[in-house]
């Protein structure tokens, strides 16, 4: 297969703090999203749909569930003789590599992967963005503009609960100033964590940072070079969700009950989102069930009443139960005559008959993986 000359590096573990318990036992990359997906499916599918076929996924030490999900990359068409998908687990250095600030170290540890690539350009991508993007648009702009680095940003309310790079951009789209900040409650140009540059430039910059013991990608590689290099901003205006907190995660899932959003994110013609196949039977709705404004995956058995819910594969909801405004992950069983409102239920949870769980839209209740209530 002909590649588009762009190698992908996905940071699979970024901004995990904001999602609290959701990332206690898994990486950001393998957090379930939208009934049948994992967060990383979006970035990997975008890369595949953009014609990229050399993709490395950098993991932290919680990579078990991600390995299980991605496997050889078959579901994404990335199980190939040449190139394809590479999982890049933490390299055994003396220091762990699971925090944002040490991206440079991680890039240094995978420099072999980067050296081996035959592509001229590299796309670095944070995994915590839910969007359906064609990266060729960004690559084309990057080449056309002759920039050293192109950084994708969004102009919106700055996501709470995570560290953000805020850009000041001149009329020629050149980034003139970078502020790295947390919790800025305002509308601004904030980085989406997507960067394109020449592969050789990335290798040089990483080596330079390493020799100065500077390990922070945002501060040491971007911010410090803002006047030395031509760093261009590329504004992404289409639908996107940044999973910066449990509330944002909840909101992004719920947005899928809007058909327009669903079309832009998942059902976009020629831009499918791939995921691991599970071979569940179609969802079965029983006699006396009631469904309103819900997104439901295969394998579910719905006998109760659901409204404004995002229901993952093989979830069972018993007779007489009323479930509203909930995100329910796979294989969870909700018994009979339960009432759930604004709850995020992780996978394999058992909610026994007659239970009531009520959260708030702004602060949903979270039930951890494989718990019994």
């Amino acid at each position, binding site marked *: 297969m002909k590649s588009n000359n762009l190698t992908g590096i996905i940071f699979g573990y970024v901004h995990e703090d904001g999602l609290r318990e959701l990332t206690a036992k898994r990486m950001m990359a393998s957090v379930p999203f939208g009934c049948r997906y994992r967060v990383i499916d979006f970035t990997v599918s975008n890369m595949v749909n953009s014609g990229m076929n050399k993709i490395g996924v950098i993991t932290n030490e919680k990579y078990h569930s991600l390995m299980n999900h991605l496997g050889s990359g078959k579901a994404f068409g990335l199980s190939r003789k040449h190139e394809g998908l590479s999982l890049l687990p933490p390299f055994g250095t003396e220091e762990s590599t699971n925090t944002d600030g040490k991206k440079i170290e991680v890039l240094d540890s995978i420099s072999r992967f980067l050296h081996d690539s035959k592509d001229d350009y590299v796309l670095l991508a944070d995994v915590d963005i839910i969007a359906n993007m064609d990266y060729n648009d960004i690559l084309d702009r990057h080449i056309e503009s002759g920039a050293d680095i192109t950084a994708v940003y969004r102009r919106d309310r700055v996501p709470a609960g995570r560290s953000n790079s805020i850009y000041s951009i001149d009329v020629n789209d050149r980034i003139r100033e970078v502020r790295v900040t947390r919790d800025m409650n305002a509308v601004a140009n904030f980085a989406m964590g997507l960067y394109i540059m020449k592969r050789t430039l990335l290798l040089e910059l990483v080596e330079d940072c390493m020799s100065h013991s500077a390990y922070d990608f945002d501060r040491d590689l971007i911010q410090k070079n803002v006047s030395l290099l031509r760093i261009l901003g590329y504004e992404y205006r289409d639908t996107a969700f940044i999973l910066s907190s449990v509330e944002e995660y909840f909101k992004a899932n719920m947005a899928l009950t809007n058909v327009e959003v669903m079309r832009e994110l998942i059902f976009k013609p020629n831009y499918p989102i791939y995921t691991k196949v599970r071979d569940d*039977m179609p969802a079965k*709705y029983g006699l006396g069930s009631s469904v309103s404004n819900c997104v439901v995956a295969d394998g579910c058995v719905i006998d109760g009443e659901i409204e404004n819910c995002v229901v993952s594969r093989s979830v069972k909801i018993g007779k007489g139960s009323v479930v509203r405004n909930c995100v329910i992950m796979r294989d969870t069983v909700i018994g009979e005559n339960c009432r759930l409102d604004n709850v995020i239920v992780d996978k394999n949870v058992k909610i026994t008959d007659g239970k009531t769980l009520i959260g708030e839209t702004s602060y949903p209740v979270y039930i951890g993986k494989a718990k019994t209530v």
Partner: protein
Amino acid sequence: MLPKQEVVAMLLAGGQGSRLGVLTKNLAKPAVPYGGKYRIIDFPLSNCVNSGIEAVGVLTQYQPLELNEHIGNGQPWDLDNMNAGVHVLPPYQRSKKSDWYKGTANAIYQNINFIERYDPDYVVILSGDHIYKMDYSKMVEAHKKNNADCTIASYEVPMEEASRFGILNTNPDGSIYEFDEKPKVPKSNQASMGIYVFTWDKLRKYLEADEANPKSSNDFGKDVLPAMLEAGERMFAYRFEGYWKDVGTIDSLWESNMDLLAPNLPLDLADPDWKIYARSPVMPPHYIAAGASIQNSLISEGCTVYGEVDFSVIFPGVTIAADAVVRDSIVMPGAVVEEGAVVQYAIIGEDVVVGKDCVIGERPEKIENKDEWGVAVVGPNCRLAPGSKVAPKEMIGEGVKA
């Protein structure tokens, strides 16, 4: 030489399935959609894998394009093994005497070389138009225990229907003493399921003899099995219990889909120990809008439902608009049912557009003369103009109907 396989399965998938009419106009019967996300052939293929059979030949002849695409490299069934796996076997040209598959036995005869590559002890012959879950390894065990040359799976049918089937008359030990093809006065109600286990050396001998006989129609049921019985070979019936349905007709296809909606059906598609694998389309989860109503139905991924769905099986990527009603029906992949349309007791083919206010099919209680009632069928890719009517039992082919 490939590594030896004790059992090779040969799946007869070349039949036209003419009784399914427009549904199989451009499609081999085994590729007909079934059960919300499957195709008929997913059942025997999944049974093979779940039974530990790793070498499977699929004999194709009639309209194989979609079937070939569906089977592909066999990956959805884990049949993309290094040394075995699934192989699509169309008839091919040879240095002398090339021919289409003339009958079921001839199809196997023409693939003796394929089977011999695995040097098997037993060959399982399957057909591609049955819905059931069966552990073929147990049948092979029974075959071995009986020291049989041929074992035929049998299924108990109601006595009053027995005259529609090929009936196996057996001794108390299960050995067969007579085949009774559609008997007027049946002696037993054990119907042949068209699933055979043969000891390979024996079968090869009979296939060669059958081929040499110019009077033979080269069919297992009509020629090979009677010849074996006459020669006194050890033939046994293997009783199968559980759900089994031949879906070779419109009525049986419709019924079998509806069976999936019954509680306590002995065909558990959710059983993690005996999954039915399928080639899954890349589709998002389905969406059920506010104001929609769904009762006792199966809905697959990629569907968008605004209207009413009752007792129906809805395949991936189907859209059912507001104020549309779908009852007691099967709607195949990619079909659209527009506003105000009413679909009852019908099969809607792939990518059909049922225009606004169309009326398809009718409830049986609304028809006085029951002979006039039947399942209405709209063939694949039909675009029905707004307000069109399709009567019960009517079958609409491709194209536009005003």
